[in-house]
């Protein structure tokens, strides 16, 4: 889990453990980071950024989300 502090703001991927640690720092704003949808053609879960870039895919939704979070966290 990564917490980035820049210009007086804290950025992180939202998760229960992360929010437990950072919530008391101030007012929280949430922005949806991705879409995880079922691809009928490939019969897999596909995670894409809000801009449409594919960042993870696979048969297990849980695993796709875990990979997706790692990718998004690396971009914080």
């Amino acid at each position, binding site marked *: 889990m990564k917490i980035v502090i820049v210009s007086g703001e804290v950025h992180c991927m939202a998760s229960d453990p992360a929010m437990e640690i950072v919530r008391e720092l101030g007012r929280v704003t949430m922005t949806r980071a*991705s879409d995880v949808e079922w691809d009928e053609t490939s019969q897999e879960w596909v995670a894409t950024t809000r801009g449409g870039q594919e960042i993870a895919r696979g048969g297990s939704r849980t695993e796709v989300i875990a990979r997706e979070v790692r990718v998004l966290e690396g971009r914080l």
Partner: protein
Amino acid sequence: MVHRLPDGLYPPRNYQSLYGEGGLVCNKPRMPLKELPVSHYAKISVKFANREALIDALVDMGWRRGQIEVNSVPVHLYGYHGDERPEMADIVIRRENVQGSANDIGFSTVTGDVIISDYDRSVAGALALLSAQKTGGYNEAWVNTLKDHYTGYVVQRKVNELQSKGKRVKITDDRRENGRRVITLDVR
């Protein structure tokens, strides 16, 4: 692996596609796919609400603990001529301890705000030992540096609190890079 979702609910009722005929049957609560959780970015605008962390951060910025006035209730700040100002704060750096500053600097841990006069935000003036960090008085950059230190202490305190409750969490890395502070935690 393939999940077939004929009824549009997740998880699938039957994992036959994964485990073969007679495979695992899911009895967990199911929900429409559109309502499943997705990832979110969290952004927090830092407020100074934790007294102990704020005091530690102010020490990092060059003050001695004895120079940091801690009040149980908000008190008035004073200006250059000793005049009482309308602003009130519970954590106060009096002007005689703020080199180059004309007025008291205050923090309200109730609202989380820092109170710095417009004059002090605009002029160069700081503790000599911090001169290299100064770019022009107690301006936004200075406040952001203070928030950087403050956040580190709040996170450390929260980690300590969670560890005392038996949770397996620890800070594994803490570094500054490209004008950012990045704290990495291992949470299990």
